[in-house]
Each structure stands twice: as C-alpha cells, then as structure tokens.
C-alpha cells in the first residue's frame, strides 16, 4: 500500500479519474460504454509501444527503430498470410521472432561498436522501414486473419480484449525488470554503467536483452495495429516515435536510464488516450487541437510531479541521487533488493 502511495503515477491517475468524471458529467457520451472502450483500446496500443521504448530507456539507451521494426513485422506477417498462406499462428510467431531478431541486431551493433543507440537505431530503423516499403511497393496486404481482427476490435462491454495484451505485457516487463537477473542487470547498467561493469555485469548483454525485448514488444504492437485497420500496411510505425517516448517518460521512466515504471507507462497511456478522445468528444477546433493536446500533456506531466513535490515519494526521489545508483548497481550484482525503488 505504501509503495502504491509513493508511486509517481498515482497523482497522474487521480487527475485522469477526476477529469474523466468531470467530462462524464459534462458530456453524456464521454462515459458511454463504447467511448470507454475506445479510450482503453487506444491506451492498450500506446502502452505496448511505450513499453518497447521503456525497456531500452531503462538500460540508458534509446531506440528510434521501434516504429521501423513494427512496420517490418507487420509486412512479414501480412506477406506470410497473404502470399504464402501460412497459418495465422505460425505467421504471428515468425513476425514476433523477426521483431526480436531486429532488436537483437540493434543491441549487438550498439554493444560491439560502442556507438550511441540513437545513431544505430536511426540507421536500422530507417533500413527496416525501407525494407517494408521495398517489399510491398507501399501497397498494404489486405488478408488479415479474422482472429487478429477479432482480437484487435473485440470487446466485452467497455473492456477491449487488447487491454489483456497490454496488461500481460506490462506485468511481464515489470516482473522481468524486478525479479529476473537480466532485468535487474538492465536497470543496473542503465543506472550506472561503470559501477555495473565493475560489479561484473555485462553491459553488452544488458543492451542486447533490452533491445531484443524492445523488438519483441514492437512486434506485439504491430500485430495489435493490424487488426484494427484490417490491413498490413508498411506505414505502420511511422508515427510511433513520439508516443513511444511520451508514454514511458510521462509514466515515470527516467530518460537517463536505471529507472523504469511499466505500470506508470500504462497509466500514462490511459492519460494520453483520454486527452485524444476528449479533444474529439468536446469538438475542439481543428486548428486548436495541437495546442490543446500539448498543454494537456504538460498538465498531465505536472500532475505526475505533484506527489514528488509534496514529498510523498521519498524513495523515488532518492533514486535520482548518484549514490543511490551505485547502491542499485551493487545490489543488482549481489542479487540483493537494491533495485526495488526503480522497477515498479
């Protein structure tokens, strides 16, 4: 309970719930079952795209290839089903393996060359997108299996089935960062690269694990998107970049690494989806949408800081101190509990 009260995302969640109640009272349609479904479905997409970036941010790196991998996986699955008539399960599995391989390639190149992930993933992301467009000549595959469409658009009242995927991915990533040795290494390396190395942790392995996981999650997001449009388009992922950073950072993941919050990301995704939905429900002037969206996101970020400013999140604040990074790295090396505050 005390951990929940200290969570950075708690004020964000509270602000969203209050805003939702106000909007629900003001506009009847906002609280309608279908509208809640729309918000949660969008949040499910955004949360998984955000997780794909979060695992890389956790290791102190970044990936500009999340969208490119998403596009390539989309095309691979579309091609396997549409052209080669693979069973849907085999096609999706192959796509997810491909996404993981793309991520692993990023990690290996970054680890071997010691180049910045920014540079490497800028190049590989562009290459992945190029392959997707080259293979298809920009023409989408249209034979998306009905099972994927049912998953992407299915719902039980206001609850989209996709949210189960997002919950699952959030729980798995959170658990992996907290309890798996490789997950703890990712955070330790992200928190203090030198201390982690001195403690015997492999930065290369952490990079490969983080980027490989990112590729897998980008693949999952790609499958989720395919069903909504009922087509596998190479344009998938071209506009994921901003959302991939916005979700984890608003959710409390540190841009500098060593600190990640998968639950915070999920909450942030709900916040962003609510903002996007509210702008349409309230029929905000098209020319004012961009400005309103920016201001609301800023307000959401500030809401996320309220708890910290009020001194409610002592331990979270503590993780920003250099000393705490060393402790985390040492704790990770010893397999101890030093990472508790950073993997939420």
């Amino acid at each position: 309970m005390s951990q929940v009260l200290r969570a950075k995302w708690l004020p964000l969640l509270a602000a969203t719930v209050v805003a939702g109640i106000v909007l629900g009272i003001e506009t009847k349609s906002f609280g309608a079952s279908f509208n809640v479904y729309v918000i949660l479905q969008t949040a499910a997409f955004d949360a998984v795209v955000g997780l794909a970036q979060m695992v890389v941010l956790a290791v102190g790196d970044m990936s500009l290839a999340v969208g490119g991998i998403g596009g390539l996986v989309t095309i691979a699955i579309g091609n396997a089903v549409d052209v080669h008539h693979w069973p849907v399960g085999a096609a999706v599995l192959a796509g997810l393996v491909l996404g993981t391989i793309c991520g692993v390639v990023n990690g290996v190149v970054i680890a071997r060359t010691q180049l910045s992930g920014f540079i490497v993933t800028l190049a590989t992301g562009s290459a992945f997108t190029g392959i997707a467009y080259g293979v298809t000549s920009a023409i989408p595959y249209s034979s998306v299996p009905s099972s994927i469409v049912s998953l992407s658009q299915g719902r039980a009242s206001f609850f989209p089935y996709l949210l189960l995927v997002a919950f699952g991915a959030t729980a798995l990533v959170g658990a992996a960062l907290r309890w798996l040795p490789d997950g703890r290494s990712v955070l330790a390396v992200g928190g203090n690269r030198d201390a982690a190395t001195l403690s015997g942790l492999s930065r290369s392995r952490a990079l490969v694990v983080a980027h490989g996981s990112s590729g897998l999650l980008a693949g999952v997001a790609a499958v989720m998107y395919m069903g909504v449009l009922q087509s596998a388009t190479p344009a998938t992922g071209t506009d994921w970049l901003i959302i991939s950073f916005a979700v984890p950072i608003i959710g409390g993941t540190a841009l500098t690494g060593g600190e990640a919050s998968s639950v915070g990301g999920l909450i942030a995704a709900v916040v962003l989806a609510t903002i996007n939905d509210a702008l349409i429900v309230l029929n905000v002037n098209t020319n004012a949408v961009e400005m309103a969206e920016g201001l609301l996101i800023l307000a959401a970020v500030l809401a996320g800081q309220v708890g910290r400013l009020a001194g409610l999140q002592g331990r979270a604040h503590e993780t920003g101190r250099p000393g705490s990074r060393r402790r985390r790295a040492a704790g990770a090396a010893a397999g101890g509990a030093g990472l508790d505050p950073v993997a939420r």
Partner: protein
Amino acid sequence: MMHSPYEVDRTPRRQRRGRAIAMAGLAGAAMSLAGTAVAGTSASAADTHAAAVAAFKPVKVPKSKIKIALIPGGPNVYFAPWGLAAQALSKQLGVTVSYVVPPTPTFEPSVETSTIDSLVAKGYNAFAIFPDGESSIIPVYQRLINRGIPVIDLAGCTSDPTPALLCYATNVEASATYETQILDKAIGGKGDIAFLTGLLTDANTALREKGVENAVAATHGKVKLAQVVSNIDSPSAAPPAVESLLASKGAELKGMLSTDYYPSVAAASILAKNKQFRHVLFIGQDNSPTVMDAIKAHDIYGTMYQNSYGQGIVGGTWLYDMVAKGCTVRANAPFTKIPGTARFVNSGYFFVSQKAVSQYIGKPENIPSNTSQVLAATSKYLACP
C-alpha cells in the same frame, strides 16, 4: 571533389541562348508575381506568366537518351499505380520511364530534392513530380527549367508563379464538393455529417474542407457539418479518432465522409465491426481492399476514386512529347484556374457505389475515359513543331 548535377551544361550554344531568353521571361514573370496569390493576380499578370511558360523551349533529346522520371512525394499506396503507368509507357514509347520513390515515408522535402538531384546526375531529362514542400522544391524546379529540362506537377500543385509548366492532378476541392453532395443526397437532404481529413499543413486539406463547406452551404442549413476531424491520415491516428467521433456523435450523425486514405480504411473497418452505427452513411476515398470490401458488404455507402494511373500516363506522355518532339506548353491552353495555380488540368474523380463496386475491386485507381479525353486533347495544351 563534389559537383552539383546542375553545374555542367553541354547543350549547344544556340539552345542555351534560347533557353536563357525564355528563362529571363520566366524569371521576370516570377519576380513580378512573387508573393501574390493567384486568386489575387490580375489577368495580365497571369497572362504574362503563361506567356513566359509558353516561351520555355525544352531541350530535344534523341530517343535513345530520353529518361523520364515520375517522382511521388514518398512511399504511399496512392502513388503505386504510377509504377504501372511507368512500365506501360516504357513499353509503349520505347524510352526509359522510371517511377522513383524518394525514401521518405514522412514526405521530407529535402529527401525529395536530393532524389531529384541524383536523377539529374544520372541523366534523367524530364520530370513529373508530386511536390513535398513548395519553398524547397521551387528552386529545384527553377534549376531544372534553366537547363531546359521540363518539369510538371503531378497529383499536387505548386503555386504560381511556379516554374512548373503545368499541374495535372485531382481537383480536390471540386471532388470534395461532389462527394459531399452525394452524401447529402444519400442522407435524405438533411441532418448532421462529419468530415475526416488529413494534415492541416497540406494545402489540399484546406481546399477539401472548403469543398465540403461549399456543398453544405448549398443546402441552406438543412445539412450541418457537425464536426471536422483532421490530422488523422496515418495508421495509428485514424482508428481512435474515428472511434471517438462515433462514440460521441454516432447517435446524431447521419453521414460521414473522408478525403484521405487511412481515415477511410479505419472508418470502413470500424463500421463493418460495429453495426450499431450502421445508420451513419460513410463515403471514403480511394480503393483500399478494406474500403472496397465494406462497400460490397453494404457496410459503407461508397468511395471516391481518383485517377492516379492516368496521372502517370498523361504526365509521362506529355513529358515525352516535350523532350522527343520539342513541344511547348500553349499560353492559351484550356487550363482550369484553381486556388494556387492558373495552369491546372483535372485528372478526374468519380464515385464508386455499392452497385458498381464489383467491377473495380482489385484494379488500380484509374479513370480511362478521363485519361483518353485528356490525351486526345493534347494539341490544345501542347504546341508541337
């Protein structure tokens, strides 16, 4: 040492002098018209510009060396039929006609201009281009024209005084008006409608919105444009926006229309899955399989077809006439004047209904009657020696 592809000009001196005179005219017209919108230009200024364009003499190229490039804004399904058109023209004319896609999914002007530069260096001598960004593309056009290389706008227009010799594209404003009129009629002439469209930064979006507003205004209040949702022409932006719109206004809306690809695909897919919004009649844009299947299943009302294949055919053919035969653009050609340019030729549009959809499924966007009519009228647009 790096050389600009425009640096060396080995054409005969007489041709260069002729072009220089033409360019002086073009430059003069451009300077006199700079900063002035077409809508506000006087007839004489437009005439001066037209005369300057007509004075442009393309460099004649031996058939074996003719290389024509059709350049879209970036990889996009809309332009895919240009590739088929390039193949057909290569075979028909016996020259190189290439469909070259700038590697920029986001339609970056700098990538498009560097693609053009590379093609000039490779010896391409005629260009039909979808302009990504007016301010950056116009200097490139000017450099090409200065070398005697003909350039036309295809599928999207630069504004006068542009060096582009003409613009062959969909009349997006008229198309949006027509689409709205069909929707108005379909909903019984009264009720609320919503409009889904693309980037606000795209000049065509404003024209489309104007077209919709014109049609709505003509109903004298019987049809109301209840909401415009823009900036949603991408795979991830369109579905939630369409769903949010239906969630908030689905009960009141009687109709919905889109002038862009992804909102059309998203709306078709969502309406097919959510029968509670069946009363909302939707007209989409273009021919994605999702849209065509939804029309066939009577989940949506219809779609607007454009003529992207015909754009490639007409654009490539006219460029061939210019470089192979030395044809020039007539000053008194029967161009249409639209906001932005007075040298516009409409590539056509038409509505595909539920009844007619079967005959269009699986075929490239194409309006053969418009293409053949425009090609038959070539002599009205081009003066050939």
